[in-house]
């Protein structure tokens, strides 16, 4: 059995804070059984402090914060946040351009909200199945393995960022390239979607080794 090397300054009995305002406005009768139990537990246990990246305003989004943190280099959060803001602005501008140029009947199909585009693009990039290297009898096989939700989100974001950092022309700035990639992913085109399909195909090809997985 392994002991934990990672520890935290909080006592293990502390629970995670819930920042969303709407959950607190629900009257008691509307809650389901599990939520009532959770509420009772929360009333007794101490709760951790809310982290400084999280806020109850409409503008704070957990996915966007996670993406900003992954883009950050050497702890320069100011720069990462400004890049993110410029990316969202660029997406909005491009979509508005398209909106104003489009004929009447197509105007409703064009999505202008950059947050919706961001979420949808990330969802389109997430792989369903991944490969894991397992060594048996000296040889390493690539075994197809189902991925957990947070692993999928992480892979999608990681691919986006590496794609934007490496495969771009020297003069293009990050927001421009990122907005381009996000719009392409939103329409299910682009190099990241291709990478996802390639991963799915290799997983399908390696189906024979699937029985090596023991978890």
């Amino acid at each position: 059995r392994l002991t934990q090397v990672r520890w935290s300054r909080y006592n293990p009995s502390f629970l995670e804070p819930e920042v969303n305002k709407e959950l607190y406005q629900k009257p008691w009768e509307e809650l389901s059984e599990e939520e009532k139990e959770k509420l009772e537990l929360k009333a007794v246990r101490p709760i951790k402090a809310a982290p400084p990246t999280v806020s109850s305003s409409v503008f704070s989004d957990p996915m966007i914060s996670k993406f900003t943190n992954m883009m950050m280099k050497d702890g320069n959060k100011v720069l990462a946040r400004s890049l993110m803001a410029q990316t969202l602005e660029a997406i909005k501008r491009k979509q508005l351009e398209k909106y104003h140029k489009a004929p009447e009947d197509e105007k409703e199909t064009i999505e202008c909200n950059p947050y919706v585009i961001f979420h949808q693009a990330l969802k389109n990039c997430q792989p369903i199945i991944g490969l894991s290297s397992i060594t048996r009898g000296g040889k390493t096989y690539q075994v197809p393995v189902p991925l957990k939700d947070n692993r999928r989100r992480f892979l999608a974001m990681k691919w986006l960022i590496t794609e934007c950092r490496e495969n771009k022309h020297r003069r293009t700035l990050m927001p421009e390239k990122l907005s381009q990639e996000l719009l392409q992913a939103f329409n299910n085109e682009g190099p990241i979607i291709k990478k996802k399909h390639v991963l799915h195909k290799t997983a399908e090809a390696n189906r024979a080794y699937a029985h090596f997985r023991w978890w």
Partner: protein
Amino acid sequence: MAAAVGRVLRLGGRWSAAVPGGPRAQTLRLIYTTTAVQRKNVGASGPEKYTEEFIKKQIEEFNLGKRHLANMMGEDPETFTQEDIDRAIAYLFPSGLFDKQARPMMKHPTEIFPEQRKIQWGEDGRPFHFLFYTGKQSYYSLMHETYEKLLNVEKYQDQLTAQDFSPHKEKRNLAGSRWLTKIELEEMLLEKLSDNDYSRFIQLLEKLMTLSCGDIQDKYIQKFSKEVPAQLQKVAIEPLQYDERGVAFSTGKGARKTARATAVVYDNGTGRITVNGIDVLHYFPVLQDREQLLFPFQFLNRIGKHDMVCTVSGGGRSAQAGAIRLASAKALRSFVTEKEVEFMRQAGLLTLDPRVKERKKPGQEGARRKFTWKKR
């Protein structure tokens, strides 16, 4: 040689005399044991050091001494409590020592002499308990008992389903109780346990509790659970104060890492925030910090209704913002109903963040980073 012995003595170890075996050897040999090697509290390290008669004698002496002490202090011997004893001893034997354990104390012998197990074998050398040779007899017998209870509950459940009675599910209040900690269990069993043993036992208890007919074994389970008082978090909320113009205000203090902040929140305001005499837009140019300052107000839907004047020192940009956030949340408690205070607490606005910079350790480059590994 003498210096080494002196150094070793200062470490606080204990010297005990030992007679090596054999009828011919007449010399005594000094054995040194450090405090690290000595085991704490738990008996069963060997034959009893404190016999029952010894402890009874100590208890009688303690009670006599208590009466003498009460007479000396001029108080009634019948109603002389432990706190009175502590006060009397502190008065009669004043000590400037730092460690409370090093000062003279007079306590009931059961608190001073740790509980020890009696000798577990008879005169012929045969042990009494059938699990003696496992080494942890009380732990294994406890596991066997608990498992037996589990099997009984399952049998009862099967009987009920055979008679087509649906087992009733009464949810016990999980929120108010916790299991015994490993140390408490060790004290109960008078045996050393490993982490693995402890977690196995807790798993068994959890399994017993999750079964729907576990209510039968309620009494047994209660032996191993403790109440967690729900009144822990009741902090007194200060009432509103009023300044010369008649405007209500309240103060709050907050801290984060090394930053310390005080905030004064005024009612009937326009939402202006001043930090150290400087407007908030100039003091916190970064959007994230201003978001954090406004977080408590936004959570309570009171953005344009309050004015705030704060002072902050120490820490960095983000730490100061977090400190002011905590201070303003604490100040806002006086303006708001109890339910909303509870919502704020559950949102994490009223907890002091205990995370501080971890110290650098010797032999490593930083707190966690080790030096580069070189093969040669």
